[in-house]
């Protein structure tokens, strides 16, 4: 595979033509082949750094987590292979199933809340009026803040005595928002919607703008009203975008770790201890890295399974082009 040409010669001479000796080689009988090999060598060399990095720091950890799930490790000492002990531990804990149920609930709830709102806002922003572009800029601001900053902001903002509830002086707002196992979920879902709806809105805005205007013109001639146009043209045309956006939402929901970590640490009690958080706490607070790895494997399977399920629901033909879009 590697040609006789010194590989560094290809990569280390920017701004210079090939060495004279190489030109001579081209006219000889094996020239075409050697040139192809040289091309291949340089392409492999170009791709090598990215490939190595990805293999070592992404693929290896992904395989590593499977291996570690069959071990016991406290994070400092020796790693011991203990077969299914960690798995048994992970699967018999009540927190695991509780966390799994919570994360599934969260995925469903965030999807149901964010998708209709994002489609509506995206369709609205797709209009050509100038002020809508200004609105889009404002909408995007929450996306720029770190989850830590957002969690900290909402913590103070919801304070019953010194936050917005007391400022607006509305009785129903004066609740112990973060201390009640039901209300805390209302808060969490609202914050996540606040943070991520702008992103999905932008995706839908781009998609709506690509729907051919002639389709709407034809519908108007047929006498279809605004609402009818939305349901008969806009929504069906957004099908692939819906798949992309839903995939990102579903897989993304597995990473809403930081906001919950800063806001509630899983509390009150265990009411927001979703599986990703449970995994972190088990591994890095409880020093049970083996069990945490088993939980992580569940997360990986869950993520891939859900991503595949969304793609499958959206039709097989869509999956190829949507992987590119994601």
């Amino acid at each position, binding site marked *: 595979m590697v040609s006789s040409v010194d590989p560094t010669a290809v990569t280390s001479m920017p701004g210079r033509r090939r060495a004279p000796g190489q030109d001579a080689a081209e006219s000889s009988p094996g020239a075409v082949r050697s040139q192809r090999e040289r091309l291949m060598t340089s392409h492999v060399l170009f791709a090598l750094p990215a490939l190595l990095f990805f293999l070592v720091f992404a693929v290896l950890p992904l395989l590593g987590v499977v291996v570690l799930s069959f071990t016991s490790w406290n994070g400092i000492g020796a790693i011991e292979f203990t077969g299914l002990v960690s798995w048994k531990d992970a699967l018999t804990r009540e927190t695991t199933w509780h966390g799994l149920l919570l994360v599934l609930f969260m995925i469903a709830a965030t999807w149901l809340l964010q998708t209709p709102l994002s489609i509506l806002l995206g369709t609205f922003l797709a*209009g050509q009026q100038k002020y809508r572009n200004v*609105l889009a800029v404002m909408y995007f601001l929450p996306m720029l803040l770190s989850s*830590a*900053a957002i969690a900290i902001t909402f913590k103070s903002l919801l304070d019953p005595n010194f936050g917005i509830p007391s400022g607006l002086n509305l009785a129903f707002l004066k609740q112990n928002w973060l201390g009640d196992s039901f209300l805390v979920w209302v808060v969490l879902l609202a914050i996540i919607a606040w943070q991520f709806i702008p992103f999905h809105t*932008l995706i839908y805005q781009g998609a709506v703008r690509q729907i051919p205007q002639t389709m709407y013109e034809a519908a108007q001639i047929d006498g279809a009203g*605004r609402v009818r146009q939305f349901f008969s043209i806009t929504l069906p045309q957004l099908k692939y975008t819906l798949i992309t956006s839903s995939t990102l939402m579903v897989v993304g929901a597995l990473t809403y770790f930081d906001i919950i970590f800063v806001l509630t640490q899983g509390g009150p009690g265990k009411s927001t201890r979703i599986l990703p958080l449970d995994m972190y706490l088990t591994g890095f607070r409880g020093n049970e890295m083996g069990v945490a790895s088993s939980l992580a494997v569940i997360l*990986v399977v869950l993520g891939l399974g859900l991503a595949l399920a969304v793609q499958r629901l959206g039709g097989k033909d869509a999956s190829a082009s949507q992987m590119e879009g994601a």
Partner: protein
Amino acid sequence: MRRNWIGGAFGWVWLVIAILPLYFVAITSLKSINTYFGSNPVMPSPKLAFENFTAVLEADFAMYLLNSVLVALGTVIPLVGMAFMASFSIVRSGHRFFSPVRSLFLLGLAIPVQATIVPIYLLIIRMHMYDSLVALMLPGIAFGLPLSVLIISNALRDVPRELFEAMDIDGCTEWQKMWRLALPICQPAIVTVAVYQALMSWNGFLFPLILTQSPDKRTLPLALWSFQGEYATNVPVVMAAVILSSIPIILLYAFGRRYLVSGMTAGSSK
């Protein structure tokens, strides 16, 4: 055309929802602690107090800022370079070796990063890089590659073949084609990737949490978190810290908005 009243009203309502928390942060950061306890929380204080910002700046803010900048640069520059070179090979080479390479990167999009933290922690410890800024860059680069390769290779695919063939005739090497032809043409895609990955790196919380320990290695989100623990009762100071930690990324957004938005939505409407 009739006006879309429902959409319009909702659009403005969302503007209020999006802005209100930011408004709260801004006015609270400008209140002295006494005003904060004594005034209406939704009203701005008539007397602006900048002491909160001074307090944040005196609490090693510059160090955390520097850490965040270093980690962002150390992640984004190698990431963009590697992603560009890999994309060039994937798009330009017809060899069948590159088809699985491409699939591998695409598959990377579906990996929940969260699930890999235990092995990454182990790997970083074994590499003797625990509690260093470099430890934060390495996984950041790796998990940034899939999306970056995707966006850049989509842009490269649009470069007309004839341009490359013209350079062939001039006897240019692949290396020269890459830097003299592909790079300038892909520049918008590369800026998109750089801005987006800088945002990801800047706001990252998980890797700093598990891979660092000492206060002098903290990046801004982590510093903000521990700051909030220390100043739990002094909300105005914490709000000032929220603002100061976000200013650099808001500036970046102002500069790269066009690229960022087009990149984030790139291809998602196919």
